[in-house]
């Protein structure tokens, strides 16, 4: 198993196109972070990548084999979705143990021992019905299913939503343990960027149905700078560079700069230079129009 490739994926719901010509390559043996604002298309993208949702056009291939309705390929993919219960679907009435039994039936590499161990770790009561669980408990259940699936490519949609800090830290540890042991590929969407940034080898930013950026997290941070000082000095220094998210207060100005390959930060200016976090870089790239 080496590569999951999406080619020119579009997805249209009714009259609304939510994914616009997405090209994406996911290599085996990495942890990817998928970040984007609400409504950017993250969940739709994940469901199309894992063939839980048909693309309107385009293809998704695992090592050249289409994933759509292809059980030989699908057994290597697991998308543990966020659980929510509309009035129309009946899974809310399932008990935890029934949900796990269903997962085991559909996931050919299911590791029951691991699922049992994680059930102790994240204390869930097997007899509880899903619609009685809190948001955090539902997250725990989706995490257990994702990890115990042992699928080569495992996708988690906001796994830490609703989890308390202690449980979140524990989740990252367990994830890294599993990753170190098996080298499985994980794709994780999250809004809690600050604490997960160090987990991601690569980050994929989605904005308005497009891939805004896909890059090694370390390399992205190494080329990102926050420059602040007198507006004129900042402007002089950053002239010709790729500048994002300018903020002004009186005569002072702060900008986020992303250097392109081969570019260097100009020296000899009277400004403050800081390293932004991944979250800041994300806001600088995706929050532009939120500004007045």
């Amino acid at each position: 198993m080496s590569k999951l490739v999406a080619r020119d994926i579009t997805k249209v719901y009714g009259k609304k196109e939510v994914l616009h010509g997405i090209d994406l390559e996911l290599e085996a043996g990495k942890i990817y972070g998928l970040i984007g604002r609400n409504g950017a298309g993250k969940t739709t993208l994940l469901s199309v990548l894992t063939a839980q949702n048909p693309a309107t056009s385009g293809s998704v291939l695992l090592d050249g084999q289409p994933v759509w309705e292809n059980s030989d390929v699908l057994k290597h993919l697991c998308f543990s979705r966020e659980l929510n219960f509309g009035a129309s679907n009946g899974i809310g009435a399932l008990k935890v143990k029934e949900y796990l039994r269903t997962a085991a039936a559909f996931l050919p590499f299911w590791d029951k021992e691991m699922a049992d161990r994680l059930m102790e770790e994240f204390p869930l009561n097997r007899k509880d019905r899903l619609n009685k669980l809190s948001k955090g408990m539902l997250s725990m259940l989706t995490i257990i299913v994702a990890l115990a699936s042992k699928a080569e490519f495992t996708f988690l949609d906001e796994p830490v939503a609703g989890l308390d800090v202690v449980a979140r830290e524990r989740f990252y540890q367990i994830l890294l343990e599993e990753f170190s042991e098996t080298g499985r590929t994980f794709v994780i969407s999250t809004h809690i960027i600050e604490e997960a940034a160090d987990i991601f080898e690569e980050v994929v930013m989605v904005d308005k149905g497009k891939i805004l950026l896909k890059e090694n997290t370390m390399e992205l941070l190494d080329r990102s700078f926050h420059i602040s000082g007198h507006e004129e000095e900042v402007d002089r220094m950053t002239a010709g560079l790729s500048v994002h998210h300018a903020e002004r207060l009186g005569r002072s100005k702060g900008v986020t700069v992303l250097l392109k390959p081969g570019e260097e930060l100009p020296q000899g200016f009277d400004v403050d230079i800081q390293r932004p976090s991944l979250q800041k870089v994300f806001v600088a790239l995706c929050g532009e129009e939120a500004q007045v």
Partner: protein
Amino acid sequence: MNEILTQEKSIYIQIKEMIENDILRDILLEEERAPSTNELAKLYAINPATAAKGVNLLVDEGILYKKRGIGMFVTAGAKRKIMEKRKQNFYNDYVKSLLAEAASLGITKNELIDMIRNAQMGGKNYE
């Protein structure tokens, strides 16, 4: 090795410096096994590739060396090597910026020497 990671610096640089600090303080001894990439990844909840980058920088500098199939070890003479390097950094990062800040405040050379002496004697404020 149990410091808290900060946002100010790249994580792999911090990993590298923490291992160096442990060598300087004799928490890690020469010819002893250094923490593995996976151990570091788990302890700090960071991607193993990030931890590996920090560790590999130390290998490049001859502070750590790899024993095939066993792991990373601290090179003999690593402590002295780190001290020499840090001395150079001390000159670049502290002494030079000290002089630059002193110049911008109009502090003369003699005054500066006086200040250092005063601080060394345990003086709380500079008179």
